[in-house]
């Protein structure tokens, strides 16, 4: 077993294990943490595949931002424990069987006959001068400029969506209106209210 393989199996183990732990976790916050763990494993695998940029992106963007967002929401809504009572019901066995069959079928398809080393040889490792980022960047801004623009649109949608949906209009905002302040007059400030005297009422 080569070092590559050892690394691969170790990371794979953690990847799978933490993923399983994530879906079976009863606590949402813990689940997020397991997910982060599995993302780390994934990133490691990606590095084995010489996709350094993406691995880093996964950690930085995903773990750093997206997962934190998850945690934030969980904490904000305070749903990490209160509602979490796992009810796997009868679906788990069925689900596992289905999953097992699918995995088996996929394995049949994706197995050594099709993608073994004898069929698809492992490429030679790039040298130290290889920069994954450069390579990607070169293409990203040339060949893939159109998708890149589209990604921008996507993010714009995400922004609009998040604001539109979650933002509560003028709920707790106090806005200053300078023109109103300038135009203000005494009668706007003082209101004279005539109150019936108590003596009259007594009668």
């Amino acid at each position, binding site marked *: 077993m*080569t070092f590559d*393989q050892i690394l*691969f199996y170790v990371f*794979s183990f953690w*990847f*799978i294990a933490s*993923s399983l732990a994530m*879906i079976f976790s009863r606590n*949402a916050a813990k*689940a*997020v943490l397991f*997910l982060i763990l*599995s*993302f780390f494993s*994934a990133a490691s*695998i*990606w590095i084995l*595949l*010489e*996709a350094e940029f*993406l691995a880093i*992106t*996964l950690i930085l963007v*995903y773990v750093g*931002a*997206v997962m934190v967002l*998850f945690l934030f*929401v969980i904490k904000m*809504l305070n*749903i990490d424990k209160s509602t*979490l*009572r*796992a*009810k796997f019901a009868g679906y788990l066995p069925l*689900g*596992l069987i*289905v*999953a097992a069959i*699918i995995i088996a079928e*996929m*394995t049949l398809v*994706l197995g*050594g006959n099709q*993608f073994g*080393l004898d069929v*698809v040889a*492992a*490429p030679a490792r790039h040298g130290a001068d290889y920069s994954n980022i450069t390579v*990607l960047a070169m*293409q990203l801004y040339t060949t*893939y400029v159109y998708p890149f623009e589209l*990604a921008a649109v*996507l*993010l714009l*949608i*995400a922004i609009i*969506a*998040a604001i539109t*949906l*979650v933002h509560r209009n003028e709920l707790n905002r106090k806005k200053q209106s300078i023109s109103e302040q300038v135009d203000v007059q005494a009668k706007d400030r003082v209101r004279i209210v005539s109150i019936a005297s108590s003596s009259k009422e007594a009668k």
Partner: protein
Amino acid sequence: MVSLSDYLILSAIIFCIGLVGIFVNRTNIITLLMCVELILVAVNTNFIAFSHFLGNEAGQIFVFFILTVAAAEVAIGLAILTLLFRNKGTINVDVTNSLKG
């Protein structure tokens, strides 16, 4: 050496874990969202593995966009989740079944 097949099978396993996670987990929606993330990571792994073995960067570029999309998706997903919580006071999937039949 690790074969392409190994990577693909790994991602298939993760993919299926993601799938199973979605329907065994009825506790809350946030876990569902995380399962989706898991699926996407599996797919990403696929792409990267292919990209690596093909010596073709297109797969990695694709992954880059998938990550972007996933991030946007999470944002919207969490927004919807927040709305759900505001409306129902819970994000338990069990109670969101007023539409059926």
